């Protein structure tokens, strides 16, 4: 089987500009179809339905914006953001006796330190990011079982109830998600760190040659990922009034799905927080629609998986080569 013949038969040997246009058309058509489906489905465009959808997606969204920084830095993904989320809910709940503000600070510092350390190992020694995140995943589970005996933390008291409320009419999780998107996009487009991150992600050698201290940029990306994951962690802990390793299961996969569906390139250097916002919204709208159409959660997993695979394949259409 000749690779060239196969590529030709699928019709991918189009000139660069045509390919970009084809890609754009496919994206718009898919988006229009989704909007049409949303309008045509009775019961979808109601305030209650939309708010519950938005709140659920916010927890994944915060992690996804964090994951965007890791993907942009050229390190594909972290397999342990879900576990980081879980262990941060436990740390948050355990440190509640020092007061809500103190516990929040502890949770954010802990999460940022945990991912930041990985970022340092990956950036400074250029260790393989996938292996490092798998190692940390195993370490987190091991140490958490060592300290908690595998049980969740259920503290008494109601300090965290504040975090379950609303700001005006916006639920706090949604506000937090939007905040991460705004902060994330601000960092990416308006700071020197953000510009360096794109440079490091798209061409590591060129970044080194340009005098960027790449390990600092990579470590920074992981620290940001940890901070944004902590947003999700404290809100989740407040919502369920517990800290538990169950909370974050599957969040790494949900998050990377949202990042990729949004159009951030898996090889790094291209993408944004706004794209991840779009990806998160698209995935949750699809899941909401599937739910209303009577599909099971199992079917939702499959369809999201197929969409991610399709998006990764489509992305090459726009690549120059």
């Amino acid at each position: 089987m000749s690779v060239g013949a196969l590529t030709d038969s699928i019709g991918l040997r189009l000139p660069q500009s045509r390919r970009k246009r084809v890609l754009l058309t496919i994206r718009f058509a898919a988006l229009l179809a989704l909007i049409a489906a949303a309008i045509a489905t009775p019961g979808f465009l109601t305030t209650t339905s939309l708010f519950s959808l938005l709140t659920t997606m916010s927890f994944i969204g915060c992690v996804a914006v964090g994951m965007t920084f890791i993907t942009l830095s050229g390190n594909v993904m972290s397999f342990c953001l879900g576990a980081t989320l879980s262990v941060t809910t436990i740390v948050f709940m355990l440190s509640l006796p020092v007061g809500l503000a103190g516990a929040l600070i502890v949770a954010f510092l802990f999460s940022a330190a945990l991912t930041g350390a990985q970022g340092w190992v990956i950036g400074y020694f250029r260790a393989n990011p996938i292996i490092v995140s798998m190692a940390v995943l195993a370490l987190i589970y091991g140490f958490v079982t060592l300290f908690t005996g595998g049980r969740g933390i259920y503290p008494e008291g109601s300090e965290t109830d504040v975090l379950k409320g609303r700001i005006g009419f916006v639920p706090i999780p949604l506000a937090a998600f939007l905040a991460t998107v705004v902060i994330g996009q601000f960092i990416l487009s308006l700071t020197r760190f953000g510009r360096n991150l794109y440079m490091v992600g798209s061409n590591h050698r060129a970044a080194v040659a340009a005098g960027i201290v790449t390990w600092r940029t990579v470590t920074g990306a992981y620290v940001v990922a940890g901070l944004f994951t902590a947003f999700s962690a404290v809100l989740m802990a407040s919502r369920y009034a517990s800290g538990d390793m169950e909370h974050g299961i599957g969040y790494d996969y949900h998050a990377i799905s949202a990042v990729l569906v949004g159009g951030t390139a898996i090889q790094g250097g291209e993408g944004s927080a706004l794209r991840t916002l779009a990806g998160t919204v698209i995935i949750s709208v699809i899941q909401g629609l599937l739910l209303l159409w009577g599909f099971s959660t199992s079917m939702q997993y499959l369809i999201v998986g197929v969409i991610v695979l399709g998006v990764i394949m489509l992305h090459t259409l726009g690549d120059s080569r």
Partner: protein
Amino acid sequence: MREKLDTPSGRPYVLLAAIVVIFCLVDWGHDRFVNRATLFSVLQQFATIGPVALGLGLTMIAREFDLSVGSMMSLAGCVAVMLGVEHPLLGIAAAVLVGAVSGVTQGTVMVALRLSSVGVTLGGLLTVGGIAYVLTQNTTIGYSRMDIAMLVNEPVLGIFSLRNGVAIVLYLMAAFFFFATRIGRDVTAVGSDPRAAMVAGVDVGRMIVGIFALSGVLAALAGALLSYSLAAASPVALVDALVPATAAAIIGGVSLAGGRGTPVGIAGGVLVLCVLRSGLTAIGVPPYVHDIVTGGVLLAVALLDAPELQRRLFALRRVSDLHGPVRVVREP
């Protein structure tokens, strides 16, 4: 002798010997470690992780990475348990076919669209996992043939069983093909330098598709046999196989940069993990210690394998030299 042990394939066995010696010393006089039951448990775990690590390791030797093996294992288990009630062999055949189709599809997509394997197999991981969820409707399905469950785990000659026998035969076959035919050299060549391999006459595209098909088949076989032996299959339970399989492959001397590693080395890596787990259980250490040890070993290997490690350590030494006592340079 020294040269032999210093090859990537030899190193895991040195580590293995060291671990066995440590366990023997810790367990001196208790007889919990050195017995038939521990050896049987080591081989049973070898049957679970071994084939997956072999497939994953081969993709890593070719400088690719197959993330989809984790969910392939659970999907294969579900397929086998659902179709294998009447004819258990049919269940296994169906599972292996699913593995092959998934591997060929992903490999073809990678080659035809020139995509990175991590991206494609990440999509594969989610899709294959989704199919498993749909097939089982997100529940654990039981396998009514207890006779088959007993049969695959029935000890033969004290330490072997049908299940670990299959894994051992797979490794022997892999080692034969790797060393006795040109396949091994071709895979290694593709991993070291795909362009040079292509110039040298290796059909790189076909090689990649073949390796991913093999990886899918091996994961499927391990998953099907594991589900038979547990008499149950679930879409979630087996996803955790990815981490130990990766750990086993890189402990076994497979380089993340591609082009290094052999089936014999990978077998050693798998044995290291299995002996660690069985040994820790045998001497009564709680199971979470195993997670910590696996994570620690993975992190250590990732660090040792990191391309910048040498340079960074050298830089650190130079800095300490500069700040240390001033050296007197003797004039000739």
